[in-house]
């Protein structure tokens, strides 16, 4: 047996935009075990709920993550609305869907850029982030923010998008889609990209499911699970099927995200066409009493919010199980047996969001 060495990976590492630590136990060039540890920037936001008014807490929930901030706020609102029996106006549900899908597009484009950077394709990284700017411009024009939207509230949304603006957004997205297709063709067809990602970090569908994996990582292993199929917000009125790939390797995870960008653009178009006129929020009075689990499909997968309230202004318990936390066991599993050189690519294709873990 070769000598075993422990290589510390992170918390500071070129491929990690945020701090997570892995002890990689290696034999020669092969990882035989990966032991993660977290908590470097843990914020204790779940505990903060005991001191914040439940309506103000939407702002805190949005700040769990800077990439899927809107979806965090939306999931929290959904949970409280369910506990309080609030019926959100249809138009608000469609607006939430549009902003949620815009979040997915910008998140996936950001990920593609980071992935390109990780395997040394700097111009591709630059192109992906340039395209992402177009999406962020739409978000800024409709919400006033690029990172924190602040447009979701309990009972509906704070801002409307008028018909002409919505039409303009769909037209702009169609134009951007053509550019995205041109750039993402490189991810799908380029020899060097395929060489770095194909047959690397393979996980079967059975394994992925057994490990509780979620999101693109699960779907890349052939399991058609997408929390949007539950039918929250306006998704029950939109036509789509989960994007699935079979091979379960790093390239499959990349292909799923590429295809999901176009799916999201299509969903925004559908939502724009079907969006009814009407109110965008209802007045919320009183305090919640009861409990609920709320699920939303974020760019990284299914997020679970649990709220428990006892009739006061402060919730008794607020719990978030983020997709990255659910994908941690899968990451450990995929790294086992991988080559040291492939570790950065494998970690990136799981797309860990450490802010989400360190809620």
């Amino acid at each position: 047996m070769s000598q075993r060495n422990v290589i510390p990976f992170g918390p500071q590492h070129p491929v990690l935009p945020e701090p997570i630590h892995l002890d990689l136990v290696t034999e020669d060039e092969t990882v035989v075990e990966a032991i993660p540890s977290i908590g470097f920037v843990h914020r204790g936001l779940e505990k903060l709920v005991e001191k914040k008014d439940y309506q103000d807490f939407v702002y805190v929930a949005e700040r769990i993550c800077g990439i899927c901030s809107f979806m965090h706020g939306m999931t929290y609102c959904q949970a409280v609305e369910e506990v309080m029996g609030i019926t959100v106006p249809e138009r608000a549900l469609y607006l939430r869907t549009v902003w949620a899908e815009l979040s997915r597009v910008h998140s996936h484009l950001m990920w593609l850029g980071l992935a390109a950077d990780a395997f040394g394709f700097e111009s591709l990284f630059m192109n992906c982030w340039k395209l992402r700017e177009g999406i962020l411009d739409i978000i800024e024009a409709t919400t006033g923010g690029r990172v924190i939207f602040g447009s979701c509230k309990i009972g509906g949304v704070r801002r409307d998008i008028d018909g002409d603006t919505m039409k303009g957004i769909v037209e702009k997205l169609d134009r951007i889609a053509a550019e995205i297709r041109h750039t993402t063709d490189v991810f799908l067809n380029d020899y060097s990209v395929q060489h770095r990602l194909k047959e690397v970090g393979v996980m079967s569908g059975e394994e992925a499911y057994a490990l509780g994996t979620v999101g693109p990582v699960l779907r890349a292993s052939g399991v058609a699970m997408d929390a949007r199929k539950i039918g929250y917000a306006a998704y029950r009125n939109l036509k789509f099927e989960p994007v699935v790939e079979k091979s379960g390797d790093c390239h499959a995870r990349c292909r799923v995200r590429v295809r999901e960008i176009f799916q999201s653009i299509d969903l925004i178009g559908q939502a724009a066409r079907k969006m009814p006129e009407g109110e965008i929020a209802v007045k919320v009075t009183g305090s919640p009493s009861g409990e609920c689990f709320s699920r939303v499909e974020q760019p990284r997968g299914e997020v679970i919010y649990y709220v428990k309230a006892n009739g006061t202004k402060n919730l008794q318990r607020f719990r978030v199980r983020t997709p990255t936390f659910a994908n941690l066991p899968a990451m450990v599993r995929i790294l086992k047996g991988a080559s040291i050189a492939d570790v950065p690519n494998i970690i990136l294709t799981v797309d860990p969001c450490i802010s989400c873990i360190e809620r």
Partner: protein
Amino acid sequence: MIEEQTTIAVGKDELLGTVSDFHSQGYRLVQICCTALGDTIEINYSFDKDYRFTNLRLTVKPGEEIQSVSIIYWSAFAYENEMSELFGVKIRNIVVDYKGHFYRTAVATPFVATETDEKNDTGKE
């Protein structure tokens, strides 16, 4: 609209058997979470199959030991280490037991810590 959610109360002794049944029926472990309710701790084990959401609810007293379900669902180790370190729940036989080193927290079991604990605690090793 949120899907139908079922909650089933389980006792400490029936936990492993019930979780094992869920596993054999093909349920996915969605999450495990903990709620400190004064003199009791409520633990929710959530499962999903074909978008059907089911919860097992176990109520224990602080300091009471429970069995790990990670021998059935391996991925449960992450949730169980979290519960152990943030809430101080004693869990026996976790397949990957970090023994307090999964999270790097300044205060031991911060989610059940009182203000006095926080003042007295100088940080764990």
